[in-house]
């Protein structure tokens, strides 16, 4: 399994992809710093929502993970190298798991570290909001990675599919229908964030669900989409 993991890391660490991800992270940190320079964020719940929900969880988190996870299989399908893996005596879960882990290994630290820096800019060195952001992002990174890895395997148009999920389903439908929170990675992340530190992140209370439900739902999403990925690998024709 380590061989597929190392191979996947090499594939995901392409120069342009890493540059885009780091540039986006830098932009988020810069915007937070600008906002912090103009207002006391610990006192302004509206700006906190804008930065941590609007920029971090709605934008940076899904975009970074989308860029990586859809490529985990997508690149191999596009350049027709997937057969080098599928025509080996390797159980399919041992191909899917390292692909997922590679996306997490590359994307997780970038997203979580960016979130932690943004939190420290906004709230200083207080451990509670930092822990809340890190935990929320860890849940979001893993759930999105599971969904987007599957998407990269089932469709050649994974990026549009993922953008639709994030910006139409989670953002638009989520704003109109409260029940969407139970089927939204964004809602799981915000719920974890709010549950750990409801003082700093009081502004994100709208649409959050109970912590056990959020964590349980995220775990279920991860398990279901990982299983779907393995199933797809077993049943699909390899180009």
């Amino acid at each position, binding site marked *: 399994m380590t*061989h597929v993991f190392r191979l996947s890391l*090499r594939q995901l660490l392409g120069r342009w992809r890493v540059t885009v991800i780091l540039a986006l992270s830098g932009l988020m940190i810069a915007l937070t710093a600008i906002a912090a320079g103009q207002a006391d964020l610990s006192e302004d719940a509206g700006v906190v929502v804008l930065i941590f929900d609007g920029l971090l969880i709605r934008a940076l988190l899904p975009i970074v993970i989308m860029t990586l996870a859809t490529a985990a299989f997508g690149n191999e399908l596009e*350049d027709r190298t997937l057969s*080098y893996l599928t*025509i080996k*005596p390797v159980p399919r879960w041992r191909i899917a798991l390292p692909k997922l882990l590679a996306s997490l290994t590359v994307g997780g630290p970038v997203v979580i570290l960016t979130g932690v820096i943004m939190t420290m800019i906004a709230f200083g060195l207080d451990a509670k909001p930092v822990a809340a952001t890190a935990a929320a992002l860890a849940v979001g990174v893993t759930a999105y990675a599971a969904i987007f890895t599957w998407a990269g395997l089932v469709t050649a148009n994974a990026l549009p599919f993922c953008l639709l999920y994030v910006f139409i389903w989670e953002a638009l439908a989520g704003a109109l229908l409260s029940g969407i929170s139970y089927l939204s990675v964004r809602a799981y992340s915000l719920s974890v964030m709010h549950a750990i530190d409801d003082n700093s992140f009081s502004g994100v209370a709208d649409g959050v669900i109970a912590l056990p439900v959020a964590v349980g739902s995220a775990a279920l999403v991860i398990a279901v989409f990982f299983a779907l990925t393995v199933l797809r690998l077993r*049943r699909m*024709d390899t180009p």
Partner: protein
Amino acid sequence: MTGPAIEARSVSKWFGDVVAVSDVSFEVQPGVTGLLGPNGAGKTTLLHVISGLARPSQGEAFMLGERVWNNPEVYRRVGFVSEHESAYGFYTGSQFVELSACLFGLPDPADAADRAIGYVAMEHAQSRKIDTYSRGMRQRIRLAAAIVHEPEVLLLDEPLNGTDPRQRVQFQELMRKMVEDEGRTVLISSHILEEVESVADRILLMVGGKLAAAGDFRAIRAKLDEQPYRVRIVASEPRRLAAALVRMDELDSISVDDDGALIALSRNVGVLQTAVPKSAAELGIRILRVEPLDESLESVFSYVVER
């Protein structure tokens, strides 16, 4: 092993309304077997079904007595080189072959990779990245990755694409060695008859997704040789040249097409090649162009099917 090394039982494969392979059944025994057919005949799809990369829409494929589809364990005994040339370009040749050895679960991947690379004579370039390889080198390193676990069955899809004549000879020697010294089963697909001719004992002939003929290479080749070749000749005075050529016994027919070029049909191209310039020189006619019209072999394959 008592049964066939490869077996297809009524295999069909379709994509939407397009039938790529239609009700194909055959058995392949140890030795080299050629899977021949023009482009679009369904060879690659059939190889994908046989190798387990594609699920048959109907029927089943077996390798060494085991069902292939959704059975990764069978790959411990099978090697496959696909038609496309892509590989992990950021890896060196040796890293690529060693990755393959690791995925096959070999106890000493580095040693197995060294042996396979030596087998295809790629030691000199094994430390270079695959991105820097020529097409022929890519084919050889991909072959090394496919045979690193010393498979009993080897499936090769158009393996000679992009290779030069010297590499073709090397490849043919390699195939002979694998079969004669090691008793393996090799199935090679190609759309070029001559590529397979020197290594294959038996052929499977695919046309339009169907198995048109199967069996001894020489018997089928003899059928192919009976077909007249068509040659198009552009000359300064085509009708005078036609009048001279029509007396040749080796010529089946000669006609003038809409563009004023001669279309000659002959079963003996060698004699035609000599007679045309000779007659033209005697008559003071300039030959502007001579081109074969059956180069794709499509018509040759069709000819066999029609018989």
